[in-house]
């Protein structure tokens, strides 16, 4: 019984995160201005990181934790660089 609840909640979490990623991609494709697209990219990064963590729980492997850690770091650097670009027009001054 509890195994079935666990399995269904993992399926629910994966579906929720995939729908969230689709909504973020929708906002990134039609966002009116550049800052909306940058924020949508940041949201997409966070959602994919959480999706990989749920996938790691589902398969019981630690490699997905490392993948999600790398995704989180790359997302931080990418968003900071893009925000800097929006502010100044160049990344490295």
């Amino acid at each position, binding site marked *: 019984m509890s195994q079935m609840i666990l399995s269904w909640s993992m399926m629910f979490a994966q579906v929720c995160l995939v729908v969230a990623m689709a909504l973020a991609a929708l906002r990134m494709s039609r966002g009116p201005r550049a800052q909306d697209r940058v924020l949508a990219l940041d949201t997409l990064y966070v959602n994919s990181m959480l999706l990989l963590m749920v996938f790691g729980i589902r398969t019981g492997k630690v490699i997905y934790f490392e993948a999600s850690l790398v995704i989180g770091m790359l997302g*931080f650097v990418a968003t900071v660089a893009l925000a800097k670009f929006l502010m100044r027009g160049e990344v490295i001054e």
Partner: protein
Amino acid sequence: MSTIEHAADLPAWAALAVSFFLVIGAGLTLIGTIGFVRLPTFYERIHAPTLGTSWGTGGIVMASMIFFTVLSTRLVVHEILIGIFVTVTTPVTLMLLARATLHRDRVEGNPGVPGEAPAETGEGDGAAAGAD
């Protein structure tokens, strides 16, 4: 719907706790992203995805910690690295993005944007000093 093989000897309370935190985390992330799509202006939209970076990440990190700790019968807390990292970096990125947006709106002279800060007294209170 097949059961999960490697979690066959997980006790019931741990399975229920993991399920609870998974549903909480993923549901709050979805709610935050729905708000991000539906809210009208950028300054309102920037608040919504933080639901996913605070309780969404917290819930899923806690579910992963409970799952691997109970399953391997030793303390597994390396997921908390992700929680700390996301908690520290999200305010930094969103603050930078909001200030860049404010700068762009002021340069373009868009309506509904607070004007320049009256005097450059300090760097830290720039975002709050513009509101009248």
